[in-house]
Each structure stands twice: as structure tokens, then as C-alpha cells.
């Protein structure tokens, strides 16, 4: 393993991210913050939603921001760099084993997803206070869940980025990301689906469900959430599955 090359690849991605910082921030935070404002502030303030909804909403918004950022940060560059121009070629030719080029992308995406997740908390707190009740009883659990969520979003970005072609990006977001977000227990807890037993079962194939419920367990344990061991196992399994799938797709794209 050539750490020098790995760190240089990471430095390159950090450099490019820094250059695109402003659009990156807007793209990551605008939508979730608008959502927080409308649902957490307007709807609650006008009495259409109970005040407790603020606290219920935050973990879901955090999950969306992280997953969106991770997927976007890994998938979009991969899709364009594997296109006709083959921009990624100089990194494929770097003196490092091919899978590590993909793993570097995952690490870069994971870091961006973590930053996005950690920034949502204070931003949302600014909009939602007073009345936001976070109970971080177990900081270690928060760290583990946040890492697993960031990991699955970055690995998902790798798998998607190496499977989707440029002309299908729009389709990817409307067919994959949008249903994932709405059926991801982001704006409601999983227990809210108890009146829809079939749907409640089906959504369990959606990794975002475990991300939202996991963050709910770590941030607002006063609300009902999925059984914690199940969340941890599911998130770990999705991390591994998406990484393996992503690496396979990456190799297929990289080597003809």
C-alpha cells in the first residue's frame, strides 16, 4: 500500500473541494435548511404541527444531508471523470493498487458527509430553538452511527457513480434518491408506518431508514425508533455491501 500516493490523491480531492466550496455549501445545506425552516418553524409556529416535531425532524434532516452529500461527492466526479474525457486516467495510472483509487474517493466522500452532518446540527439548532430537545446520552453511539451513515453514503456514491452514465444523472436522482428520501423515515419515525404494515416492511430495504432511525436513537432517544442492534447491523451490512459492489463496478469501469 502506497500511502504517499493515497494521501496525494486525497490532497487533490481536498484541493478541488476547496475550490468549489461556495456552490458545495449551497448545494448541501440550502434544501435541508429550507425544510427545517418550513416544517420546524412555520408549521410548528402556526400550530399545524406539535412542538415536539422539531426534535423529531432534526435527525432525519441530518441523515438526508449526509447521504446526499456523500453520494454527490463521490458519484458526480466519478460519472464525469469516467466519461469521454477519461479525466480520471492520471489517477488510475498513479502507482497504487486500483481499488485504493476508489477507496480514496470513498474516504473523501465520507469526510464531506461527516462535515455536512456535523454542520446541520448547529445550523438547525439556530433555526429551531427554542424547543429543540437533543439528548445525546451516549456520545460514542453518535460517533459510530454518524461514521456508519457517512460510510454508507460514500460507498453508495461509489456504487452509483460507477453504474450510472452522464445522461442518466437526472434519472438517478428522481428514481433513486427521491424515493429513498421520502421512504427513508426522514420526516417521520418508522413507528409512524405502523398503520401501513406492508409499507413498513418494504421500506426496511432502504438504508436511509436505518440512518434516520439510528441518528434518532443517538440524538433524540425520547422518540420511538428501531431496535438499536438491528440499526447497527443493517448500517454495517449496507456499508460493506455497497463498498464491495462499488469496487467491483469501479474495476469494470476502469479496466477494459
Amino acid at each position, binding site marked *: 500500500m*502506497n500511502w*504517499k*500516493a493515497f494521501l*496525494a*490523491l486525497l*490532497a*487533490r480531492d481536498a*484541493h*478541488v473541494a476547496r*475550490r468549489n466550496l461556495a456552490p458545495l455549501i449551497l448545494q448541501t445545506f440550502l434544501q435541508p435548511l429550507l425544510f427545517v425552516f418550513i416544517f420546524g418553524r412555520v408549521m410548528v409556529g402556526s400550530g399545524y404541527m406539535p412542538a415536539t416535531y422539531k426534535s423529531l425532524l432534526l435527525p432525519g434532516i441530518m441523515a438526508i444531508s449526509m447521504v446526499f452529500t456523500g453520494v454527490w461527492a463521490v458519484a458526480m*466526479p466519478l460519472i464525469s471523470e469516467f466519461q*469521454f*474525457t*477519461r*479525466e*480520471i*486516467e*492520471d*489517477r*488510475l*495510472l*498513479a*502507482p*497504487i*493498487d*486500483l481499488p485504493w483509487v476508489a477507496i480514496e474517493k470513498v474516504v473523501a466522500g465520507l469526510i464531506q458527509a461527516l462535515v455536512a452532518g456535523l454542520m446541520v446540527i448547529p445550523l438547525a439548532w439556530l433555526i429551531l430553538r427554542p424547543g429543540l430537545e437533543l439528548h445525546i446520552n451516549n456520545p460514542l453511539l453518535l460517533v459510530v452511527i454518524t461514521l456508519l451513515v457517512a460510510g454508507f453514503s460514500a460507498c453508495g456514491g461509489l456504487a452509483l457513480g*460507477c*453504474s*450510472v*452514465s452522464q*445522461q*442518466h444523472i437526472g434519472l438517478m436522482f428522481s428514481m433513486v434518491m427521491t424515493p429513498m428520501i421520502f421512504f427513508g423515515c426522514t420526516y417521520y419515525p418508522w413507528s409512524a408506518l405502523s398503520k401501513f404494515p406492508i409499507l413498513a416492511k418494504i421500506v426496511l430495504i432502504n438504508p436511509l431508514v436505518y440512518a434516520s432511525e439510528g441518528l434518532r436513537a443517538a440524538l433524540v432517544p425520547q422518540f420511538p425508533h428501531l431496535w438499536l442492534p438491528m440499526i447497527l447491523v443493517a448500517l454495517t451490512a449496507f456499508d460493506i455491501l455497497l463498498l464491495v459492489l462499488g469496487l467491483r*463496478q469501479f474495476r*469494470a*469501469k*476502469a*479496466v*477494459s
Partner: protein
Amino acid sequence: MDSAIRTRELRKIYNSAPPAAAGRTGLFSQSGGKKTKDQKQQIIALDGIDLDVAPGQIFGLLGPNGAGKSTTVGILTTRVRPTSGTAWIGPHDVWREQTAAKLQIGVVAQRPNLDFSLTAREILLFHGAYFGLSSHERMQRANLLLDRFKLTDRADQLVRGFSGGMMQRMSIARAMMHDPQVLFLDEPSVGLDPQTRLLLWEIIREYNQKGRTILLTTHNMEEADALCEELAIIDHGRIIASGTPGTLKASIPGGYLLRLRFGHHSQPLHDRLATLSGVTEVRPAGNGGADLYASRGGSLIAEIANAAAALGVELSDVHISEPSLENLFLHHTGRSLRE
């Protein structure tokens, strides 16, 4: 001494259209990753390629588009998996010891594949960093190369806005950044203006004088002739001739090629032409024409015209070419390189 580049029995069969990286495939459209059944036609890109390139040599792979040049380079640079056979860079099996092989090589692909998110200087600096150069070394080499390739005044601009020729120069500078032992140049002078082409040739020779090995592919005879010490002529995935440009040219029967066009085909005329003094071979060509290999050129014309007139055949066109690699290719394949 061991070879710098060696391949044995290299074969590559694509199960679908070769991807953009491996060949000039403007004809094929790439579908988004999913293979449909009707795409599963097999394409034999390489059909048993054996190469031996000595260290410090400028080696040319000459052939028309689609002959297998880029696929050969792709395999030698870890970018294409061989269906069978083995390729080595120095002592390293390219497929099994990819990282070791990648440390030895610099690659200029057929199409510029620059990192569009970076400026020219950043491309060189990061490339140097991938290969573990110290930051001082990186800066120094980047400045030198930018200067050598006349890119200094655009060094801090994003390469996205560069012209095709500038991108090509930039690709070559990047490939030289880590001072690789073996440099691959896939059609390096396509799209360059004559002046830049001469600059490129000069730089290639200069790099070679440092003892580096260079493999370049081209379908430009002049380039192969001017630069290469050894050549392999490749067509339909096979090497059809190899040697120095001199020996290859000397191997053409007669040396001169006279391409003749007649009003109509006449076997007696062909038989008569074969008996003219200095003529070594007569080959029928399309539309009543004949390709004539001979040891002399212009002085044969009068005799050919007389022979045709005597048999009542009109001589409509004559083209004489001196001994060249172009003729060699034509001799071996029956097709011109440019076809």
C-alpha cells in the same frame, strides 16, 4: 540485456465495442454500462503480439486506425486486461505487478485526458505527488516542463479552456513529470501544427538521450521514419513486419512502387509488364489497375506506356513512389495506411 518492454502471445478479445480508452471508436456509441444482447459481438483486437523493445530505444508501432496499437499500449499500461498472453515492463509482469509497472511508465493517451478541475501547474504538481516526488522537486520539474512545452504563461489557468494542441503538450509534460523509464505516446502528434510537431520530436529525442525508452504509435509514416530506431507494423491485431526503418524499406521488393491505372483490365498486359527489366512483382489492383514493384521508377514509364499501347490498353494514371514505409505497408496489407 533485458528488454524494457516485452510481450508474448498477447491477445485481446472484446466482447463488446472497445471502450473509448482502448481505441479510436468514434463509430461506436457507448451505452451506460449495461450490455444488451445484440452488443455481444466479439472483436479480436490483438491476435498474438510479440514485442521486444530494448532499453533506451525509440520504438514505433505503425498501423492504420483500429489495427490494435492503442490496445497494445492499453495492456502495457495496465489499462486493458489481456485475454491471454503476458506483458512486461522491465522485470515486472504488467498485470500481476501493476503498481511496480506503473512506477516505471509515463503515458500519453490518444485523446487528452487532463484533470479538468485543476490548472496546468497543479496537474503537474499533483502528478508528481502521486509518484512521491518531494515538494521542492515537484515545483522545480513543473517549472522546467511548463517552460519546455511553452505553457508557462498559461500555467495557472484551468486546462478546461486550453486548445487541443495545448492539451496535448500538457499531457506529454505530465507523462514526463515523474521521469519514467518508459514513455508511451499514443499518436502523439495528431492534431498538432507542424511547428509544435517539430518541438515534440525534439523533446522526444532529448528524452530518449537520457537513456529512456519510448514507445510511440503512429499512422504517420514520416514520424515513424524520422523518430524510430525500431518499428513493428501492425494490422488487424498482428505484427506483419518489424525491424529498423532501413531494413524494412529494403525488404520491399524492388523498392519503387508504381501504381498504374488502365482503361480496362488486361491479363496479357500484366504478364507483359512482369517481364520488363527491373520489375520484381506485378499485383492486380482495383479498376483495371496494377501495382508494380520495381528497382527503378520514372525510367520504366515509357516502356509501360509502349506495352499498353501495343496491347490496345489505355494508360490513364501513373503514380510513382520511392521506397518508403508507406509502400511497405501497402505491400504487406494491400491497403494504404490512410485508408
